[in-house]
């Protein structure tokens, strides 16, 4: 025996040991059973819970943003498109030496300090297999240079992404608007589910108004990811539905014509088809480059645009409120004869000024023509824009009946154009003055209102809609920029019927009276826009207007030369043509444009060009309508 233990002690010890070995074995088995119990708890009792957790771990839903719908002009010219822009991106896990790579890349393309800083920040917080953008919007040269050097920089990618692009630049900025990054305020309004993965949203213009059409439906894909979040495979996919394409009523050619014709003036030109309400031209000048906003505009640029001399971001057509001046006269004249305050043939004598009856102050209300127009009837009053005639007319009507008649043409009300933020303008009444100013209406103010001055304010769009209502003999339409929607899901075209309210006159012949008078403005011997009418191949009806920017004191001479440009009168013109069957109604407002007669050629040229482009269509229409008339006729005679 190697050990010094006693034999009896030894056997006692052995039996004790055996007992303890059995105890140990039992404890082992019990504890293993305990482990199994724990496993059963996890795997059987809580199985559903853990199975869900494991699925949540592995499956991730990813949003696929839809492609934004395109915007075309009425002839299919692209106004807003999605263009691939190229970005320099780096996948950190594939880069061997980050510092050398960054240094090398900055020798090839310009990388600003802020871009570099942002990249390094992203490098810290993002996972190493996620691509990080280093430079956005590379130009073609830079793309080419990077492509040539690609082999030197493993982990570098040039990635193309779609971003909004406005090929027409300034010309369409105010009508089409622009998109920009979604901001906090918009996040609270939009349907978040549908905007997952979308970065941009319409901010102004059509882009904003038709956001719902343009955006489309977000797609979703179910992917399997690993613990690092890397996508391993796509399990299930619902493709995004692209946004609907919009075709506008605008004609880019006419739009550019109008813009150029305004020259250096800030202002607005609106042209509307009188029967359909289709807005063919929508110019607010100056414009701006909408592309600046897509990727976030710099503070410097933004300040220049919003606070510059002419505030290019200001949409004059929609927000600009101007005294309509003499362009108001046709509407007031109509009011006069409709309300029997003045006969169509009735005339008065213009001495160059007007004195308010029963007024002790002897205040002279001046005509623009100091020596006076002599004997003036309605036709002559419109043709030569005689103020005295309208002072008298206004005096006879009073402001409230004027208000009621003019309201039918949409003055003082929103036109309902498919753009947001439209202003109402101002059509004053005694009620209005009492409510807003708390004082009574003075009779003198009625006279001023009679020549479209004083409190009177209209937006260019309102003026154009009223002109169109005149041109269509009482069809007051809701102007529409949108012609039709191309629905991407079923490839169909959706359009809206023109929406209009009718203005009923006591006598239909009153329209003809006004048409003739307005025709004389352009074509008459003494017409205020007669210079425009020379050599015209068609007849245009119109009215010039000059709105005072500041008041001229009694007996003070107005000298265009000495008045600073900012203080010069606004020049306005409304017109439609051809006079026998108007196809286009135009309103022009030129800030500090001095006189409306200078603006008449803009309207003439627009109508002319419109007729050249679309008269073939209208003559076709005539032929077909003629045929149907014949058929009707024969059917009738058979009877």
């Amino acid at each position, binding site marked *: 025996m*190697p*050990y*010094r*233990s006693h034999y009896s*002690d*030894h056997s*006692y*010890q*052995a039996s*004790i*040991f*055996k007992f*303890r*070995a*059995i105890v*140990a*074995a039992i404890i*082992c*088995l019990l*504890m*293993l059973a305990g*482990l*199994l119990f*724990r*496993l*059963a708890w*996890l*795997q*059987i009792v*809580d*199985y559903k*819970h*853990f*199975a869900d*957790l*494991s*699925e949540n*771990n*592995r499956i991730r839903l990813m949003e696929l943003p839809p492609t934004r719908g395109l915007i075309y002009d009425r002839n299919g010219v692209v106004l807003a498109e999605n263009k691939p822009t190229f970005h320099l991106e780096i996948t950190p896990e594939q880069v061997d030496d980050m510092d050398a790579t960054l240094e090398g890349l900055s020798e090839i393309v310009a990388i600003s300090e802020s871009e570099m800083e942002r990249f390094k920040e992203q490098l810290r917080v993002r996972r190493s297999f996620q691509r990080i953008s280093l430079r956005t919007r590379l130009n073609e040269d830079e793309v080419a240079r990077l492509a040539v050097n690609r082999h030197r920089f493993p982990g570098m990618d040039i990635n193309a992404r779609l971003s909004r692009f406005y090929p027409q630049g300034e010309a369409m900025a105010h009508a089409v608007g622009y998109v920009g990054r979604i901001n906090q305020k918009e996040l609270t309004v939009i349907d978040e589910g549908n905007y997952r993965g979308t970065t941009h949203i319409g901010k102004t213009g059509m882009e904003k108004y038709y956001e719902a059409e343009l955006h489309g439906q977000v797609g979703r894909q179910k992917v*399997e*990811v*690993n*613990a*690092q979040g890397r996508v*391993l495979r796509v399990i299930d996919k619902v493709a995004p539905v692209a946004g609907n394409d919009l075709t506008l009523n605008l004609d880019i050619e006419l739009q550019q014509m109008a813009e150029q014709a305004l020259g250096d003036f800030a202002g607005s030109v609106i042209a509307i088809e009188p029967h359909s309400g289709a807005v063919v031209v929508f110019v607010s000048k100056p414009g701006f480059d909408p592309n600046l906003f897509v990727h976030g505009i710099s503070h410097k640029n933004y300040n220049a645009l919003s606070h510059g001399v002419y505030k290019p971001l200001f949409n004059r057509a929609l927000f600009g409120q101007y005294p309509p001046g003499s362009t108001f006269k046709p509407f007031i004249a109509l009011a006069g004869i409709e309300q029997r305050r003045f006969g169509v043939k009735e005339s008065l004598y213009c001495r160059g000024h007007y004195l308010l009856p029963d007024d002790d102050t002897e205040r002279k209300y001046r005509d623009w023509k100091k020596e006076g127009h002599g004997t003036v009837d309605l036709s002559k009053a419109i043709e030569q824009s005689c103020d005295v005639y309208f002072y008298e007319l206004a005096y006879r009507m009073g402001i409230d009946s004027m208000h009621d008649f003019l309201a039918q043409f949409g003055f003082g009300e929103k036109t309902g154009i498919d753009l947001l933020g439209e202003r109402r303008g101002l059509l004053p009444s005694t009620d209005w003055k009492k409510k807003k100013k708390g004082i009574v209406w003075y009779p003198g103010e009625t006279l001023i209102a009679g020549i479209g001055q004083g409190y009177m304010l209209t937006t260019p769009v309102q003026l154009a809609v009223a002109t169109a209502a005149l041109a269509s003999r009482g069809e007051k339409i809701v102007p529409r920029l949108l012609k039709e929607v191309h629905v991407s899901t079923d490839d169909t075209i959706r359009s809206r019927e023109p929406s209009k309210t009718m203005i009923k006159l006591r006598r239909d012949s009153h329209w003809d009276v006004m048409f003739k008078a307005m025709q004389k403005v352009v074509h008459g011997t003494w017409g205020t826009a007669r210079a425009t009418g020379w050599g015209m191949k068609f007849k245009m009806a119109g009215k010039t207007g000059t709105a005072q920017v500041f008041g001229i004191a009694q007996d003070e001479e107005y000298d265009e030369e000495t008045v600073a440009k900012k203080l010069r009168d606004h020049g306005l013109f409304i017109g439609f043509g051809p006079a026998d069957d108007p196809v286009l109604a135009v309103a022009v407002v030129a800030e500090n444009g001095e006189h409306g007669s200078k603006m008449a050629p803009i309207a003439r040229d627009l109508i002319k060009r419109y007729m050249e482009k679309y008269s073939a269509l209208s003559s076709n229409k005539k032929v077909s309508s003629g045929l149907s008339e014949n058929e009707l006729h024969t059917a009738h005679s058979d009877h």
Partner: protein
Amino acid sequence: MLSTSTQFFESDYQSRTSRFLTYLHIDPVLLTGLLLLMAAGLGILYSASDGSIELVQRQVIRLSIAFAVMFFVAQIPQHTLYLWAPWFFAFGIILLILVLVAGDVGKGAQRWLNLYVIRFQPSEMMKLVTPMMLAWYLCEKPFPPKVIPLIISLVLVVLPTMLIARQPDLGTSLLVAAAGFFVVFFGGIRWRILFGSIFTMLALIPVLWQFMHDYQKQRVLTLFDPESDPLGSGYHIIQSMIAIGSGGIYGKGWLNGTQSQLDFIPERTTDFIFAVFAEEFGIMGAIVLLSLYAFIIIRGLYIAATAQDSFGRLLAGSLSMTFFVYLFVNVGMVSGILPVVGVPLPLVSYGGTSMVTLMAGFGMLMSISSNRRLIAK
């Protein structure tokens, strides 16, 4: 009771193969259990490593080395182990002190001793040497052990345990302490002293808490509320529990565990490999695997019970129970009932050092087993 199991375990002793194994000091029953476990382990490892043949090959090489070590240790007569025990123990303690003074730092802890030829962890060696030393000490003392030998035994256990805990390596120090404890348990410590000291230990837990590192405290806290820190220290436990729970009754199938294959289970080839197994084979697989372990442990205890002398009994009993502790701590930690301590799933987890130690331990069991038979004949 024991005779029937003896017949069961030794019924095929007459075959030529078993005679050959007896000649090689190999216990055929234990060998069968170990081989089955290792085969299962390689299968799990293949799945846990994303089908990496290379990793499995390296594990096969390690297993071969570990087998060679087991075979070699099995040839050492039990008496030689008895004679070497105090020397090994003294040597081990010196190495542990050296590690603390001049050890290499790896993964934030000083565990490695660089011997210029090989780097190795003296703490691993202590898993075997500590029970050897205690068995050596206690087998000569009067039975049942009196107070003084028990105090000396306590010192013999606490000394290496504290040195290893200082590295810090909580998992290994726990296993060393367990190995020592089981020698004392099998050595016949009186039940009342045993329970008395267990209660004292429980009472001392708050004191122990003061000496724990922050990260160790964090692990214990995480155990009680893994969701308190789901992305930090709780992440391991949560993901592991999700893997096990989502395995259900029959599992997701070999190579089909999503938690495993998509990297959600941390350390899934090493400490958390059981989660991979439970996810892919469900509770049915877990029952089979744990039964296999139970088979090996019971066989070890059987060898201990039939050993011819006190030293062999104590050492074999302690080694078998240490193997059980390995298993229990690992599965307990992976399934979220024990704190995360670095204890691998024995013979299945990827990694070399602990495997060699474990197989050296089984070599000792076989040496003790063959000593029994030699004496019986």
